[in-house]
């Protein structure tokens, strides 16, 4: 039962789990000519699902009793295969404009330090029903958990990069490399997972073909150094003219890399049919000795799922972002884009974003999209230049979960505070 709880916890506690950084914010922000140094604080979180509602998620995360109404809200939205994903990132960066490097000018160097978490899962309707309602309603029936997958990764990132700090006539670019400290990883991939409870409850069959990996469970927390890895980020931006106005094409790929977790990690590859008929006893007089007393949860888990210690390498969820940006007027800009996260149960996200400059120092934006971990998404944002080098971005790309918590899941927010120094 502890395992089930862990899986459910991982499934729904998105904010404990994370990924995607807003690295493009570092690359794409224009470094004013007058500024020599920039310091930025960044933080963002997002959670979305095509089936779990934000009210359900909030209750799961914040705690309390999940009543039948709340379960039914989700049940009514469930599809045969469902997605959920979450990211939380925060950190700080420093950008320094260099006089020249490799005989080129207008190149900036930046360093950043971030804590990153990513969670994603794909699960069947039956898995939710068994987890939240129990297996009794499935007496005499097969519960289909096939293609269940779950990934949770938390790591810390030390990044160094270069980017062109000023518009070139042709393009802007950026590149960064990172050293990654792997803190925690859990993953379950069940290509086949079926639970059959006999009609009278005399047996339970669990037919599964799955791989489970887990980083060292003895070392947890921000200080845990359970793996090491590297990644690169690449950014490219090309301006061009259209009949309508100035346009830009942007492409960025973030988090191309992997983390190798150490030899204390646990791995299990199981392809078996587990037939459970209860604790076997040898004598009616020795119930205590022969069964329960010697049957710890660990021994049960060990007999069902024999883990072995093994090092493994985890490929990061890599983010591809493509946008086309057009300046429709001095105050109005439209961005269309697609986003995809590899290795993360993600569905291609199409989105459109509109930026409107109220004044030279204040801009508001609205986004609308479809895909990702949810269905339709929308959000609002604001940019403000406070003067004296202070700038701020704040907003959300997923507001729908806040607005209609019983019908939608997406919740998110981002915040960035920048200070430019001369």
């Amino acid at each position, binding site marked *: 039962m502890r395992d089930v709880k862990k899986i459910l916890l991982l499934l729904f506690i998105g904010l404990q789990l994370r990924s995607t950084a807003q690295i493009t914010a570092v690359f794409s922000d224009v470094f004013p000519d007058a500024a020599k140094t920039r310091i930025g604080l960044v933080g963002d979180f997002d959670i979305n699902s095509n089936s779990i509602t934000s009210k359900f998620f909030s209750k799961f995360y914040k705690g309390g009793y999940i009543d039948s109404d709340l379960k039914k809200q989700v049940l009514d939205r469930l599809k045969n295969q469902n997605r959920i994903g979450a990211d939380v990132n925060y950190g700080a960066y420093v950008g320094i404009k260099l006089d020249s490097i490799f005989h080129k000018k207008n190149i900036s160097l930046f360093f950043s330090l971030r804590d990153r978490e990513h969670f994603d899962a794909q699960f069947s309707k039956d898995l939710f029903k068994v987890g939240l309602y129990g297996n009794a309603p499935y007496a005499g029936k097969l519960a289909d958990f096939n293609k269940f997958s779950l990934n949770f990764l938390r790591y810390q990132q030390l990044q160094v990069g270069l980017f062109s700090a000023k518009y070139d006539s042709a393009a802007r670019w950026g590149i960064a490399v990172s050293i990654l400290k792997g803190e925690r990883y859990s993953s379950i991939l069940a290509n086949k997972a079926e639970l059959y409870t006999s009609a009278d*409850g005399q047996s339970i069959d669990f037919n599964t073909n799955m791989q489970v990996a887990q980083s060292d469970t003895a070392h947890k927390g921000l200080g845990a150094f359970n793996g090491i890895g590297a990644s690169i980020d690449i950014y490219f931006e090309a301006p061009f003219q259209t009949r309508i106005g100035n346009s830009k094409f942007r492409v960025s790929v973030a988090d191309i890399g992997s983390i190798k977790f150490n030899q204390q990690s646990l791995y299990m590859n199981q392809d078996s049919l587990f037939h459970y008929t209860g604790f076997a006893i040898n004598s009616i007089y020795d119930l205590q000795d022969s069964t329960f007393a010697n049957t710890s949860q660990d021994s049960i888990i060990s007999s069902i799922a024999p883990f072995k210690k093994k090092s493994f390498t985890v490929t990061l969820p890599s983010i591809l972002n493509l946008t086309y940006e057009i300046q429709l007027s001095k105050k109005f800009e439209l961005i269309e884009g697609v986003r995809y996260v590899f290795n993360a149960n993600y569905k291609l996200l199409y989105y459109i974003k509109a930026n409107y400059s109220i004044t030279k120092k204040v801009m508001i934006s609205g986004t609308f999209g479809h895909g990702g971990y949810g269905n339709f998404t929308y959000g609002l944002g604001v940019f403000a230049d406070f003067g004296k080098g202070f700038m701020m971005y704040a907003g959300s790309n997923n507001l729908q979960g806040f607005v209609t918590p019983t019908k939608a899941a997406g919740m998110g927010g981002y915040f960035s505070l920048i200070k430019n120094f001369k």
Partner: protein
Amino acid sequence: MRKTFLLLFTLITILFFSCRKEFEKPSWDTEILAPLVNASLDINNILPDSLLQANADSSLKIVYNNDIYKLNIDSLFVIPDTILHNAYAIPSSGSFVLNPGDPIPFPSSSETTYPIAGGIQLKTITIKSGYVTFHVKSRIHEVTDFVYSIPCAKLGGIPFSKPISVPAAVGSTPGVLNITYDMSGYIFDLTGVAHNKVNTISTGLLAHISATGSPVTVTNMDSLIIDNTFNDITPYYAKGYFGQNTYTIGPGQSDFKLFDRIVSGSIQLENVNFNLKIENPIGLDTRLNISNISSINTHTGTTVNLNDYTNTIIGSPININRAAESGGIVYPTYANFPMTTTSSNIKPVIENLPNKFGYALQITTNPLGNISGSNDFIYADRLLKATMNMEIPLSLVANNLTLEDTLNLNISKTDGSQNVHDGTITLFADNGFPFDAQLQLYLLNSSNVAVDSIFSYTHTIVEAPINASLRATGKKLTKITVPISENKMNLLYDTKRVLLKVKFNTSAQPQYIKIYSDYTIDVKLVGDFNYTVQLK
């Protein structure tokens, strides 16, 4: 400005981490249907502590041996705590000076003979455990060194000999020393220096003025008193003549565990084969006079005396020849007294389902006198005993035969995060035995008093079908569903002990039913519970 930014950065960082507080844990209700316990039990699992043997036709019999009486060596003789009082005085009159290292002219050896009750005349004993304590008083005004020996006591062939240093007397106050030695394993030759005595201990003494002392003047008033006390002497082996004595044993009771778990009901056995076996590993002729053997059922308060219709056991003297000993190996003698259902009332004795056997007897040693030339022997761990050997064919009629046992229970709430509230427990019993069974499980409080029960005696596990030969031909499935209310579940959580009672009735009564080795009952417990999941 830089300071302002750093301050802001710090504040935001602290705010971010402080917001990541620990929330309450979520919980929700589920309905869990799962098998709890399964077992395939044969008769070995149902009849505890029994030694079952299969007959040629695979029917079973209980072969059970039980000691009803074991002689204790204390019953034959006891070596009392014994004090050897030795007073040594300077033999010459007048006074003279002894220099350091000079011998003190005490007598060098002495012998003491002790009477032992019952006319027992021991020649040799080996000590299993016990101590000798020396209490020494010296009136010599200088430290004196003694070597005290018991030449007749040897350990590994080496006589007991201990150097003792006694403080000097001061004025009229003697020097005193108390010291104790372990005598375990010592072999005592009690025949004296000339080897023609019994119960005799010889001792020796060599005394000197301490070599590091000063010259001292001694007179015939200067004495040495050694009291050595043998405490708690338990012999492992003894040899001699143990006397002609009659000992009355009992009335007493010994435990009989075969039917320990049977608390009520009755049983009729088709046959019982019984043998009273007496084993005598003592080198001593004995005569037993058993006045009573009785079967006692303390649950029902019923006592059935064993009646021997042939008058060869009860009330008649039984002569048991002495055992032989050669090279330290004992060859016991045996006497067997078989009893059948026709020669005795052994069947009702066993059908009484005793948990104790009573006995009363007299033992007379050496009824013919000292015919062994004082070569009687006894080993403390090889003593006369009376054993019942039984073969009880499992061909029986059981009528509400009720077995009972107390089991420990530990249904933990773990850390309180998981809770089964209520539900049902279903018992699936596929019974291959030709008897039905009614099951009950009582929940006991801390005083072992039943406060609630799980099943009801109206629930019966139905017997297997039988053929004309009264042999079970298959299995019969019984399904018993018991609701467990929330109150009962809470009681189960708090219960540490349960009392299991199973009541049996055989098929086709009043005919005897044989139990065969291939009979089994398959039992499964299935729980259907409302379960609140609470994440940790």
